[in-house]
């Protein structure tokens, strides 16, 4: 594929196009991409190991921080698995509230993606406008759940906050405003010449490639595979709502944009139905601290694709094993296929098109290995003292500064 002598350019861990650290080494001939090697793992935080020595309640908040944008997806997926093991009957109202927050999160994630895509192709005006409109749904979420991003509305056995009637009215108003703005963006994305030129025919992934490489979510749906976990394996309140799966047959980045915009329109339909028929009832039931022995696997349709959680419980109050497979991990294998013989300039938009969330994918280990065989793994203290004497050699003494911080 790409031999050594090729002109290799690293779109390295730190790069303006990538929102999170991941390594692509691209072999180039002029502007054409010959081959791509993908190096992941820079953002691996060892969440799966960390889950094993925390109680289920603490795990809830840890798993929510796997990713900043799809925090509700991970926490709902985890909570459903735990409730399945403990055989808890979650009340209908709690499931409805969970689904409303899930769709609101899908709206804010897709708006964020639309802005980032605009930025990747150099259209900053789209970024500014989409992120301004995204504030509507962010403020709404802050009102409903108490925080703009990590909502932590889920708890084992239900939800922690109820939705009052005035909040229901606010949701409906916000949804109307957002729907009108989304219609405007659909017009823009499908008619603006320079956007279409940069998106059409870029990052093509044929239908059988998508099936073979296991693409999920909008990336797969843009290649004509109508697979949506909310429809195939309904969870929470999705079985009581009618919506259709947004698919497209363009198989390229333009198709993914159209799929995401259609999904936004579906989300508004779902929220309107949900807010209309939220049943009365309790929002949380008492959950035991020790979860009985058992295992469960739960799937969730995150904004980026299908999110899979496997939880194994051993009767104590700490899970024995938590396995998280984020949607980006499934889509990343398709990126290699999409980038063959494309231009370098398409690289950022193709990577952004699968809406990578590498903090989900990696779940790294935070480690201070003091007595490791490798001598060059520095601990934080040795790194700081090393830099202080490095500057002292050049006549600037920072040692007093470090006392102040340590002191």
């Amino acid at each position, binding site marked *: 594929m790409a031999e050594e002598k090729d002109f290799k350019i690293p779109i390295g861990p730190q790069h303006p196009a990538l929102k999170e650290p991941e390594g692509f080494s691209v072999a180039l001939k002029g502007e054409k991409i010959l081959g791509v090697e993908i190096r992941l793992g820079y953002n691996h935080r060892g969440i799966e190991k960390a889950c094993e020595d925390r109680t289920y309640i603490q795990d809830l908040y840890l798993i929510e921080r796997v990713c900043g944008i799809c925090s509700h997806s991970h926490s709902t997926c985890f909570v459903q698995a735990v409730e399945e093991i403990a055989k808890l009957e979650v009340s209908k109202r709690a499931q409805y509230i969970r689904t409303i927050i899930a769709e609101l999160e899908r709206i804010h994630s897709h708006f964020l993606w639309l802005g980032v895509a605009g*930025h990747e192709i150099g259209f900053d005006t789209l970024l500014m406008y989409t992120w301004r409109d995204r504030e509507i749904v962010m403020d709404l979420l802050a009102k409903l759940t108490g925080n703009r991003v990590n909502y932590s509305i889920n708890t084992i056995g239900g939800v922690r906050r109820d939705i009052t009637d005035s909040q229901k009215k606010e949701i409906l108003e916000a949804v109307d405003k957002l729907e009108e703005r989304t219609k405007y963006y659909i017009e823009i994305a499908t008619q*603006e010449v320079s956007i279409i030129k940069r998106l059409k025919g870029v990052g093509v992934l044929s239908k059988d490639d998508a099936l073979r490489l296991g693409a999920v979510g909008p990336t797969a749906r843009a290649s004509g595979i109508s697979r949506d976990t909310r429809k195939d394996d309904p969870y929470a309140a999705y079985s009581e709502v009618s919506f259709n799966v947004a698919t497209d047959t363009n198989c390229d980045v333009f198709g993914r944009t159209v799929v995401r915009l259609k999904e936004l329109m579906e989300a508004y339909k779902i929220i309107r139905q949900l807010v209309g028929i939220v049943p009365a009832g309790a929002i949380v039931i008492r959950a035991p601290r020790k979860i009985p022995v058992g295992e469960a696997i739960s799937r969730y349709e995150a904004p980026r694709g299908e999110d899979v959680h496997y939880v194994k419980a051993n009767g104590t109050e700490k899970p024995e094993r938590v396995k998280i497979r984020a949607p980006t991990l499934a889509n990343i294998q398709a990126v290699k296929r999409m980038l063959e013989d494309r231009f370098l300039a398409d690289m950022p938009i193709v990577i952004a098109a699968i809406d990578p969330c590498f903090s989900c994918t990696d779940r790294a280990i935070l480690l201070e290995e003091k007595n490791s065989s490798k001598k060059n793994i520095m601990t934080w203290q040795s790194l700081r003292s090393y830099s202080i004497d490095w500057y002292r050699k050049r006549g600037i003494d920072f040692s007093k500064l470090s006392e102040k911080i340590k002191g």
Partner: protein
Amino acid sequence: MLALFFILVFPGFIFLSLLGLAGQFVDRKIYARLQNRMGPPWYQPFADFIKLLGKEDIVPAEANPRMFKLMPLFSLTAVVTAFLYIPLWDIKSLLSFNGDVIVVLYLLTIPTITFFIGGWYSTSLYARLGSVRALTQLCAYEIPLFIGILSSALLANTWSLSEIALFYNSHPWYWTFNFIGFGVSLIALLGKLEKVPFDTPEAETEIVAGSFTEYSGRLFAFFRLTMDIEMIVGASLITAVFLPFGLTLHPYISLVLFLVKIFGVIALISLARSLFARLRIDQMMRFCLKYVTPIALVQLLINIFLKGFLYR
């Protein structure tokens, strides 16, 4: 002594850099307001410039230090000298001889060459790619720019900017024939200034900062100042050639009118900047050579017929 004053202070370096920074402020403020944002305070460009001057400028190890350090100065001098030939407040510009339109156009090409050499000598992958792109883009937008501007000079039957101004002032409303040329040169100017539809050489989401990736501190400050002054000089070249009215009034009034015209052109540039996505380098070449150049040729044809018709 007076020449030194002209070169260094009035239409020269000091006035031009202040105007350049003011131009950058106008550009950023309008661009922000178009995007429904607040936009920077008026002193932001000055603060950026002074901050950059204070920063440590690092020269990469493998880079050729002499070339690396000289490029910003070359580009700055080229752009500042180009300004001396443009009639500011009355018909006669400071220096003018028959053929100074060509000189100004070539002086405006020098910055792009220095970006290439600066980027190439800084031996970083991104800088290399950015500088190669800067050159390929050069061939795409130079042709329509030259045709557009020279077609208006053709109508005025001279190659000197001052005589162009003289001609269009003595024949009022003739400059309206060059309207197509004005549009074409504006698009080409977007390419020269590397503004969004054509800013692939400096595309920050692909190749970090193009040829400026390795520059920092004073050198980077001079490069950015060059970009600002190039915007002012480009805009003033277009106003001198395509909107040459109002030069015979009282010098102060025509100077103010000239500044208003320049800031008008800059507003047009930021409007264009906020409306389009960045084109890939091959799309940009195809667009420039397939659409913009033929339109420029049409403008040239119109002027040739007009010339025949006017001077029968």
